[in-house]
């Protein structure tokens, strides 16, 4: 067990520690022996294509789906044995919107707070405070059915905070939202992190991951492919910069001749490089390219490189 020690010698265990975690559904192996740790105060991301095992992993951590094998500790405790104690300290934003349609915005927060045994007066205060936090005070007494998609996601984020969680688990927090709503959620998450919250999230949006995560893993087929900081991963796997050229016979043969590694994606050719200027110059001088575009490498390049371009169901 890797512990952080603070003066006085009290060990703070990692928030999550998973070793060789496996989850099977019949013959399907959803999570295939992954190990990871999440430290206090960090934003940790799970990235991967559909069916990579991200949500299954989230559900194990959230104590709602028992693991098949391996070990996992949340706050130093086993989810199979202490689900109620762990869940008391978790805030969950699920992928699917599951607000209670029989209640208003306020009613949703208040009722949810009661599930955590929060006394009515404190639940009331917390609900009002959180409506403010996600900018829904004006919608306080509106039934949740009447809210837009973005408002519902914000309310779910607020609901996940009613118990002042020590760990926030977000499964696709900004799925299907417009840019305004996404930015508001990002801003709120940054604020929560600044207040010392630990956050674990899954996302398909690589810009979101790059923006929010201190550390992340990229998963595919139930396994962790790589782990690191967004910038570190880009540097290691994406090269610094990308040169994109329109595909032509000349360009292809020319790159082969010059021994420059490249990748063909549809009608364009991509070259990952440490120096886009040099590559661009070679191309201009000898390959007579049509269009050239140079840009910094992103997490998306790393993601596609590692998980391939084949569509997932």
């Amino acid at each position: 067990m890797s512990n952080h020690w603070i003066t006085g010698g009290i060990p703070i265990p990692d928030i999550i520690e998973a070793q060789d975690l496996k989850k099977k559904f019949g013959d399907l192996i959803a999570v295939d022996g992954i190990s990871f740790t999440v430290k206090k105060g960090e934003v940790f991301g799970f990235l991967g294509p559909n069916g990579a095992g991200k949500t299954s992993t989230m559900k194990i951590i959230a104590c709602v789906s028992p693991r098949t094998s391996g070990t996992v500790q949340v706050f130093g405790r086993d989810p199979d044995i202490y689900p109620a104690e762990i869940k008391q300290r978790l805030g969950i934003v699920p992928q699917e919107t599951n607000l209670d349609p029989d209640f208003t915005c306020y009613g949703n927060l208040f009722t949810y707070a009661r599930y955590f045994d929060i006394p009515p007066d404190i639940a009331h205060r917390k609900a009002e405070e959180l409506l403010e936090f996600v900018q829904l005070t004006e919608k306080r007494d509106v039934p949740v059915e009447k809210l837009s998609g973005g408002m519902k996601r914000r309310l779910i984020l607020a609901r996940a905070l009613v118990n002042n969680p020590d760990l926030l688990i977000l499964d696709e927090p900004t799925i299907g939202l417009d840019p305004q709503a996404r930015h508001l959620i990002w801003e709120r998450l940054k604020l929560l992190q600044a207040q010392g919250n630990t956050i674990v999230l899954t996302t398909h949006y690589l810009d979101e991951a790059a923006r929010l995560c201190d550390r992340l893993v990229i998963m595919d087929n139930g396994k962790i492919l790589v782990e690191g900081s967004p910038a570190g991963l880009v540097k290691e796997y994406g090269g610094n910069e990308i040169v994109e050229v329109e595909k032509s016979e000349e360009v292809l043969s020319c790159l082969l001749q010059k021994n420059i590694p490249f990748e063909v994606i549809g009608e364009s050719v991509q070259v990952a490089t440490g120096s886009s200027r040099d590559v661009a110059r070679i191309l201009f001088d000898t390959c007579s390219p049509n269009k050239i575009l140079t840009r910094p490498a992103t997490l998306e390049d790393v993601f596609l490189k590692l998980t391939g371009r084949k569509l997932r169901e």
Partner: protein
Amino acid sequence: MIVHHIWSVPRISRRAWKVWHRNLVVFFRTWKVNFFPPLIEAFLYLFAIGMGIGTYVKEIDGIPYVNFIAPAILAISVMNSAFFECTYGSYVRMYYQKSFDAMIATPLSIEDVIAGELLWGATRSVLYVIIMLPVLALFGVISFPTSLLAIPLAFLGGLMFSGIAMCFTAITPGIDTLNYPSFLLITPMALFSGTFFPLTLLPILFQYFALALLPLTHLVAIMRMLTLPALTGVLVLHLAWIIIVTAIFCIVAINLMRKRLIV
């Protein structure tokens, strides 16, 4: 690894009452819609069957016909309110509203959630009986104070039908297939459990069948003993039957639901 068996007694915490309370709050917020049906139901049965058929059938075994069916009206209402709450009502909350998923993300366990739903189904039966009792009293077809015992009996009977209903909810592939138990089990039971005519009019084999397997038979029998009143020692046997069946179905319902929802 904790092994969950279909017959193992589930661990339920006091948090189950939070789920019960949530349903109670929603029920009372829309109380006008919810209080009306039992009230109307009592009137309809009394007029259509009691006054209508009662004009020809003056009495059964020396009991005025309306007094004979009054306890059946209560028992059927107990059955219907609990059964429909824990089939269609629970299914909507589970499948369409995803309320159970939201609840088990809190310290509530799935066992707590289902137990809360069952307790709520039973409570709904109690509320319906409480609404119907004054109507029946107004018509002078039930006796007091023994008829007041219909209230605790409604809880037990309601819990039994909630448990049975929840078993169907746990195994139904979709909301439409819940029509099968309601048409093939609930409707026939409402007619053939000694409700509107005595069980003894039926072939002897069917009488055994009804006593052995139709839960409503026992509920009607006790209810009638309370409202006439005509208390006998057989009450204990009926009560024992209901308690055992209630325990079995509630336990199985919780385990089946766990199996369905926790994967």
